[in-house]
C-alpha cells in the first residue's frame, strides 16, 4: 500500500514538473512574440508617417506644376511668360550649380589652430563641417571663398588643404560661409554645436561662429577641376 502511494505521488510530481516547464516556456514565447510585434508596429507607424509627409510634399509640387501648365496653355503664344518662367527656373538651377554669386542670411565660421607648430586643420574637420552644414539644410557653402559645388573635392597634401584644386595652407585660419533659409539658422548653429565642441575639446582648434543677416558667397570659377563635365554623355 505504502509502495503504491509513493509510486503514484512520484508520477504525479513528474507530470506536474513537465507541465510547469512547458507552461513557462509557452508564456515566455508569447511574451517574446508580443514584443516583436509591437516593435514592427512602431516601425510601421514611423514609416507610414514618413511616407505621408513625402506624399504631402509631392502633392503640393504636383499642384504647383499643374497650375504652371494651365497658365502656359491658356497663354498660348505669350513668349514673355515662357521666357520669364524659364528665367526663374534657370536662376534656381544656377544657384544649385554654383554658377552665380549669391547672398542671403547665414553663418560665418572661422576655424583656426591655436599653435601652428603642433597642429593643423585636417581634411576630416572640413568634411565633417561641410556635411554638417548640408545636414542642417544650408543652401550655399564656401570655404575660403571657394564655392562648394556637387563635385568639389577636399584633399590634403603635406601642409596644404586642396579645395577645387586650390591649395590652402592648413596652418592658416579657414573661413567657412553658409547661407540658410532664415528660420533654420539657429537650429543649424545648435546642430553643429556638438561638432565644434568636440573640435575645441581636442584642444588644438578654436572655432568662432558668427550669425549674419547677409553674407555673400562667390560663384565657382569655371577653370576649376571640379567644374568639368566632358566625360558625361547626356541621356
Amino acid at each position, binding site marked *: 500500500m505504502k509502495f503504491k502511494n509513493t509510486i503514484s505521488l512520484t508520477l504525479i510530481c513528474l507530470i506536474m514538473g513537465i507541465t510547469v516547464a512547458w507552461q513557462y516556456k509557452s508564456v515566455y514565447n508569447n511574451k517574446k512574440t508580443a514584443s516583436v510585434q509591437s516593435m514592427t508596429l512602431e516601425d510601421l507607424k514611423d514609416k507610414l508617417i514618413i511616407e505621408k509627409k513625402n506624399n504631402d510634399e509631392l502633392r503640393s509640387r504636383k499642384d504647383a506644376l499643374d497650375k504652371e501648365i494651365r497658365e502656359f496653355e491658356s497663354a498660348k503664344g505669350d513668349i514673355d511668360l515662357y521666357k520669364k518662367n524659364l528665367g526663374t527656373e534657370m536662376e534656381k538651377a544656377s544657384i544649385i550649380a554654383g554658377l552665380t554669386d549669391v547672398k542671403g542670411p547665414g553663418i560665418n565660421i572661422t576655424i583656426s589652430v591655436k599653435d601652428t607648430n603642433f597642429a593643423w586643420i585636417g581634411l576630416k574637420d572640413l568634411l565633417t563641417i561641410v556635411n554638417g552644414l*548640408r545636414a542642417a539644410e544650408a543652401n550655399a557653402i564656401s570655404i575660403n571663398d571657394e564655392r562648394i559645388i556637387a563635385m568639389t573635392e577636399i584633399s590634403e597634401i603635406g601642409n596644404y588643404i586642396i579645395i577645387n584644386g586650390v591649395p590652402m595652407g592648413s596652418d592658416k585660419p579657414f573661413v567657412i560661409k553658409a547661407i540658410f533659409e532664415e528660420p533654420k539658422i539657429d537650429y543649424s548653429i545648435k546642430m553643429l554645436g556638438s561638432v565644434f565642441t568636440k573640435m575645441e575639446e581636442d584642444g588644438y582648434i578654436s572655432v568662432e561662429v558668427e550669425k549674419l543677416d547677409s553674407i555673400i558667397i562667390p560663384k565657382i570659377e569655371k577653370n576649376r577641376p571640379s567644374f568639368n563635365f566632358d566625360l558625361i554623355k547626356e541621356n
Partner: protein
Amino acid sequence: MLRKDQKYILMFIFILLGVLTTVQFRSIWNNNKNKPSIAYEIENLKKELEAEIAAGNELREEIEFNTKKKESILKTFVSGNDDGQLMEQWETVKLYAGLTDVKGDGVIITLNDAEEKNPIQVDWSLLHDSDIYEVVNELKKGGAQAISINNERVISTTEIVCAGPTIRVNRNRYAVPYEIKAIGDPKRLYSTFIESPIYSVLKWLEIRIEIKEAKDIEIPKFNGNIDNLVKGVEVVEQ
C-alpha cells in the same frame, strides 16, 4: 486515512496546481485579447503603407510627366524665338546642377556592414555616415563628374547623415547595402579609391566593399524639390 506527511505533499501539489491554472488562464486570456488585435493592426498598417507608397510613386510619375510636358511647351515656344540659344543654355545649366539623367563610364562601389561582429567594438562592423562621405570625397578627388548613392544624385546640397540604422541622403532614408555610382575616368577613379586611406581602413574593419569599373553607367537626376534648395538664397547681379 492518509498519513500526515502525505497530506503536506498533497497540499503542496494542489497549491502548485492552483497557481498553474491561474497563470495558464491569464495567459490564454491575454493572448486572446492582444494577439488578434495587434496582428490585425499590423495587417492594416501594412496595407496603408503600401497604398501610400503606391500613391507616392503615382505622384512622382505624374510630376515627371508634367515636367516633360512643361519642358516641351517651353521648347516649342522659346526655341523658335531666338534660334534655341536660351533652350541650349537651360540644358547646360541643368546638367551643371545635376537636374538631368546622365550616362557615362566610371566605377560602381558597393558597401555593406561587416559579416561578423567586430570582436573589439561592435560599432566598427557597421558603416557610418562619415565612411560614406569619405568614400564619396575620394571619388570627387578622382575626378568624378556625377555621383549617386542608391540612385540618389549627389548635388551641391546633398547631405549624408546617420538616422538610426539608415542614412539620410537628399532627405530620403536608405539602409545597407549602399551602391555608389560615379562617372569619370574609370582607371583614375579606381586607382584613387584603391589607394585611399579610407579604403584600407574599411578593408581592415572587414566592411564588405567592392569596386568595379563599368561602362555606360546611368545616374538619375536629382529627384527632390529644388524650391527647397534655394530658399533664402538671392542671386547677386553682376
